[in-house]
């Protein structure tokens, strides 16, 4: 694997960083929302 991006590192790394940030945070948010809904439903059904 070659991580030398010169002379375009200032464009390539932000492109990958932004993709990772957006897709990663959306994935985490989706999982958190699913878990919250599951927990809330379980507590309501217990009641």
């Amino acid at each position, binding site marked *: *694997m070659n991580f030398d991006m*010169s*002379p375009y590192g200032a464009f390539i790394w932000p492109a990958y960083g*932004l*993709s990772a940030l957006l897709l990663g945070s959306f994935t985490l948010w989706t999982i958190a929302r699913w878990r919250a809904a599951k927990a809330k439903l379980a507590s309501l059904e217990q009641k």
Partner: protein
Amino acid sequence: MFDWLFRYANPARFMGLTTTLLPWLSGAAVLALAAGLYLGFSAPPDYQQGRTVLILFIHVPAAIMSTMVYGCIVVASLFSLVNRHILADVAARTAAPLGAIFTLLALATGSLWGRPMWGVWWVWGDARLTSTLVQFFLYLGYIALWGAIEDETRAARICAVLALVGAVNIPIIKYSVEWWATLHQGESIMSGKLAGVFLTPWLVMMLFYVLLFVCLWLVRIRTMILERRIRSLMQGAS
């Protein structure tokens, strides 16, 4: 014709099926991401674009997903209007934020690729760029419309109509590079112009994007089914 689809469109069956499918799909997505990154970062520099060719592996899949997700919304909207199926409404609604994110990524990574290759971040006169921006606004409008109408049945009908009207933008995005003289390059992957050394990592990354979308979409649909159940339980209790 769609009997098999409606069999699985039953929320209980859908939950059962996706419980089995999701671990496999998410595992495959992680493997595709690892393989795609390995192959991509191992690919040699392009003779013209140098290492910026690496942006191809994330920009083009995001752009394809942008229109593909909209296609899913259109199909779900058709089922919603014709068959009045609740899962079709949920499927259309939950896909929209994913489509918006893919479109935003396509725009941002395209801009980061365009600056070193074209010398500019953005060109308003470019039909591909502008039609993709219109696509992003269509997604935002669609999401906002769902949130603005309180009656969910009414919101589903109006949003389905908006999605169908907005579908006119899909062929415009696809053929913009052929219909107009654009700064954006023409189609190079399906036409076989992309060298094999770049095609393989691109295909693997494309597979990752598709799998990621399917996983997130299924989880979002499952979440909305649970949230609807929570709402009906709370309404029943009050």
